[in-house]
Structure formats: structure tokens, C-alpha cells
């Protein structure tokens, strides 16, 4: 069995499960946010449920339109807040809240081998810690809040094997953009994407989160990486000492539906052009495209190592006078760390603005929405039509170094050009 099959079988109380069969599993954690949570709560109340199956296993994170951008979003968050109070489930208030997929691991709520569902498509992020984690809908979340269970189709697994030596300014974001470009936006539809090989074994945890975060952009059900020493060190760092189950590994190569080998040695920093994440090519193909805005943040690239990478490029430089550069630390902890390391000072001195932790502009919510004809480079995950604002605006996806370098130059550029 694959790691994914092993976790699913354990959670449905069976010795083995097979690809494409339907099963009902118990869930270890249910997440919902200010967009998906209110719908789940409405469904929960409509059927007359009086209690949640386990208050400790439900987390509500108002991160999309917060700090509330308008009256309607304030009403949505109010709904979450009141529900959390009534049913004694975890809720993160402004001041504590951060982008859910960075916050939950930070809070120690995600462990290897667990089964996590979230009413947010980027819930697949947590697979970086070796758990099965997938995005579902609001009705799914409501059903699971009542019963503690949910239905799944057992996915087939594609193994992605990365080897070779990465070039400078290439990280997890570039590997995943390259991979999505290779297989297409539905290249892994309904499937599990397992990342492995020497490159992954040496890849820092933040880059692993970035890779698993974007499997949904290839249609994947979950992304997963075998937990190892890097996982263990990360858990220790956040104060969790557990013995990782040694069986959390795929048994045989035959267990995979297919294996895709990727030599990383020739991969340049990647840029995905509008309007699909799969339009990824070397940054060199897009050099010279003028930009109006650069966004560095999101559940994909708003972690401390992302801010460090951006600061390294921006230190002592000025943002181009015709560019807005918006930096969004993903959580309060990331923000504080950036402050302690002097990164915030670097950003402000170079002319960036710092946003409180929020999903904000990534989905065209607030904190940097684009007008007609405007172009942005962003470390976010989607570049669909109208994603960051006007239906005639354009988003190019990249890693933090490329987004920072482009903000200095005023056009898409390779980081080497500004160093």
C-alpha cells in the first residue's frame, strides 16, 4: 500500500483499502474558514444537530476577508465566533489568527499519520508532515462535525521522484510550478501526489509545505511526503515530541499508478503566466513584462523562510516607483520572527507595505485588489481570470525571490539581475 492508502485504511478500520473504492473514515481534525464555515454552520443547524462530535477536533479560522473588509464579512465571522462559543470549538480571533494552512501546523494541530479535512482547497498543504489531508466542501465539514466521519474515494498515487542539484533561487515553489506545468491542471485529478527522491529528502519543511499546498492546482486530492528527520525536527521545534510511525511509507514501487522522474538540475526559477498555474516556464521567458504590483505572502509562500528570501533580495534596494509591493506575513508568529530578524525594517525601508496576516489579495478579497488592465506578480497559488480583482487583470505566479526582484525592476526579472 502507499502511505495514503495506509492512513485511509487505518481510519476506516480495515487492514487494506484499494484505489477507487468508496469508504467512510473517521477524521482527526476538521477545518473551516470565514467563507466556508458559515455555510457549514447553516447546514449543521438546519438538520437540528445539538452538539459537535468532538469540540477538540474542530478549528474555525477567519482568515480570508479579515480583518473584516466589509459588513457582510463581519457578519460571517460573527457567525463563526458565536458557533465557536456555543459549541466550545477552537476559534482564532484577530490578534491570534493567521492564514489557516500556516497557522495549524504552527499550533501543533497537525501530526504525521492523521486524517485531516478542511473546507478549503489548500488543506492539502499539511501532507508535508506525512498526514492525509484534503480539501472538502462546507456540507462535508457539517456532516463531519456531527458524525466525526466522512466519505472518500481511495485515490491512486503518482510518485514524483526529484533528483539532481537545484540551481540558485530555485525552491519548492519552482519545483511544484514546474511539475504542474508538466502534468497540467488536471494531471493528478482525484489522485494522490507523493513527492520523493534525494531533492525532497533534503528540502526544508517550508518548501515541502509549498509543494503540497499546490497539488490542488494539478487537481490532486492530497500531496504527501514520507515523514523523516526534517519532519521530526520541525515537530520538536514547535514543542511536539512523538515517535513517528515507521510504517508511514509506501511499501513497493508497484503500489504507485505511475512514477514520474524529474531532473531538477535544469529547472530555472519558474513563472506561471495568466490564466492557469500550468502555464509555467523559466522566468527568462517572461523577462521584461511590466508589473503594477508584487504580492509576497499567502498559504503558499508566507512563511518565515519566504520572507527571508525576499528580504535578501530587497535589502538596501528600492521598490520601483510605479510598483506596489505588499508583504503579508502568514501568521503573527511569522510576523514577530520577521520583526526580530530585522526583515520588516528591510521591507519598509525599500518601500514595501506590510499587511496583517490575511489571505487578502490572493483571492481578490482585499489588501491589494487589482484594477482593470493591471498586472501583478505574486507568490500565491492561482492566476485564474479575475482571481486578484478585475476580470481584465493579470497574475503571474512565482517564488519570493522573483517577486521581490521584479518589484525592484518594475518588470518581471531574474533575481540575478538585481543582486
Amino acid at each position: 500500500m502507499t502511505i495514503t492508502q495506509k492512513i485511509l485504511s487505518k481510519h476506516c478500520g480495515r487492514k487494506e483499502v484499494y484505489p477507487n473504492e468508496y469508504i467512510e473514515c473517521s477524521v482527526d481534525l476538521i477545518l473551516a474558514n470565514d467563507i466556508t464555515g458559515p455555510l457549514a454552520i447553516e447546514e449543521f443547524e438546519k438538520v437540528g444537530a445539538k452538539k459537535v462530535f468532538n469540540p477538540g477536533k474542530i478549528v474555525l479560522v477567519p482568515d480570508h476577508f479579515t480583518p473584516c473588509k466589509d459588513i457582510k464579512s463581519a457578519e460571517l465571522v460573527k457567525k463563526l465566533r458565536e458557533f465557536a462559543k456555543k459549541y466550545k470549538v477552537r476559534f482564532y480571533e484577530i490578534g491570534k489568527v493567521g492564514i489557516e494552512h500556516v497557522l495549524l501546523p504552527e499550533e501543533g494541530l497537525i501530526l504525521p499519520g492523521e486524517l485531516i479535512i478542511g473546507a478549503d482547497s489548500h488543506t492539502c498543504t499539511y501532507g508535508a508532515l506525512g498526514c492525509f489531508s484534503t480539501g472538502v466542501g462546507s456540507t462535508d465539514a457539517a456532516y463531519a462535525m456531527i458524525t466525526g466521519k466522512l466519505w472518500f474515494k481511495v485515490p491512486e498515487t503518482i510518485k514524483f521522484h526529484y533528483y539532481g542539484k537545484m540551481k540558485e533561487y530555485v525552491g519548492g515553489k519552482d519545483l511544484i510550478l514546474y511539475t504542474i506545468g508538466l502534468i497540467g491542471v488536471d494531471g493528478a485529478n482525484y489522485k494522490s501526489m507523493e513527492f520523493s527522491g534525494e531533492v525532497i529528502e533534503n528540502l526544508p519543511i517550508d518548501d515541502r509545505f509549498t509543494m503540497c499546498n499546490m497539488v490542488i492546482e494539478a487537481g490532486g486530492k492530497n500531496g504527501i511526503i514520507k515523514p523523516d528527520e526534517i519532519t521530526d525536527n520541525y515537530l520538536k521545534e514547535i514543542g511536539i515530541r512523538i515517535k513517528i510511525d515507521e510504517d508511514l511509507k509506501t511499501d513497493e514501487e508497484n503500489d504507485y499508478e505511475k512514477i514520474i522522474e524529474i531532473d531538477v538540475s535544469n529547472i530555472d526559477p519558474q513563472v506561471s503566466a495568466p490564466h492557469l498555474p500550468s502555464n509555467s516556464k523559466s522566468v527568462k521567458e517572461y523577462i521584461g513584462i511590466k508589473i503594477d504590483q508584487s504580492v509576497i505572502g499567502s498559504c503558499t509562500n508566507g512563511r518565515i523562510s519566504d520572507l527571508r528570501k525576499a528580504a535578501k533580495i530587497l535589502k538596501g534596494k528600492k521598490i520601483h516607483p510605479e510598483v506596489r509591493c505588499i508583504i503579508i506575513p502568514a501568521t503573527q508568529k511569522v510576523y514577530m520572527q520577521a520583526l526580530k530578524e530585522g526583515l520588516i525594517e528591510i521591507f519598509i525601508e525599500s518601500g514595501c507595505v506590510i499587511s496583517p496576516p490575511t489571505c487578502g489579495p490572493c483571492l481578490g478579497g482585499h489588501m491589494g485588489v487589482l484594477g482593470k488592465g493591471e498586472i501583478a506578480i505574486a507568490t500565491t497559488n492561482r492566476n485564474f481570470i479575475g482571481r486578484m480583482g478585475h476580470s481584465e487583470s493579470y497574475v503571474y505566479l512565482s517564488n519570493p525571490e522573483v517577486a521581490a526582484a521584479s518589484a525592484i525592476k518594475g518588470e518581471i526579472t531574474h533575481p540575478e539581475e538585481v543582486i
Partner: protein
Amino acid sequence: MKTKGKVWKFGDHINTDDIISARYLNTTDEKELASHCFESIRPEFSKNVKNGDIIVAGENFGCGSSREHAPISIKGCGISVVIAKSFARIFFRNSINIGLPLIELKEVDEIKENDILEVDFENGIIINLNSEKTYKFQKYPEFLQKIVLSGGLMELAKKYLKEKNNENY
């Protein structure tokens, strides 16, 4: 169950931002969501769509976010069924859960905008009344049929609550 309606044709990779833009996600109201359905890519859609109409699309329909607002807004427009070459998985499960019928059909390229289709869910047959062609489609597997026939996932939650109540929930 049978349904008959006019076709609205869409291409490949229609994503959830195309279906309902995030700027309207500050509401959960079905009618309001329906009034902005496909606004970015087909502004005339929500004004002209009629009850019972059918969406026909290419590969990977509904890719992107987990927002259930997407199938809700489509259902709210009165769309009776979405037929596509393939569906993105979260959109697929959301539609099953809320009772928006979906059909996977490889031959969608033969169906044109404004064609009138008759869909026979029980027998798995689609008839194109314009081209007079007939297509067979795969019905849902038994496990999903159970959810759909119960009237959606929350009906199963009700059943669960009733059983629990009997055990002094």
C-alpha cells in the same frame, strides 16, 4: 427522473472563480450567488438562464477552490444538470452532497450551444433533440447513488442524528 433543457456550452478548466468570483463570497444566499454566476466570463448568463437549462463543458469542470458557493450558484440559477468530459474532485463531491446532478460524458464536443437535450437519469440516456443523437452515460456508483437518492449528505446526517437520539444522544 427526466429533465429537458437548453444547452449553455463552456470550454475546458472552468474554475470556481469563473463560476462565482470570490468578491461575492461574503454571502451564503443562494439567489444572490446565482445572480453573479459566471459573471467574469459570461456576464449575460445569469440574466438569460432558464429553469431546467443544462450546462455542457469540457475537461476538469469546477477546478480550483472548495467553495460550495460554486455549485450552489449554479443550482440557484435553475440548472438541472451539468454534463462535462470530467469534473474536478472537490466540485464533484460538493455537487453530490448538495444534490446538483452531474454527468460525465466523453462526446460533449458533439453537443452545441442552444441544443435541446433530454436526460433520462434512471436509464442513463441523453437524447440531443437537435442532432437526434443518443448517448449513454455511466450512472453514479452505488455508494454515491445512496447519498444522491437520500437527497444529499445532510439527509444522512439527519438519519444519524435520529439513530443517536434513540440511543439518548
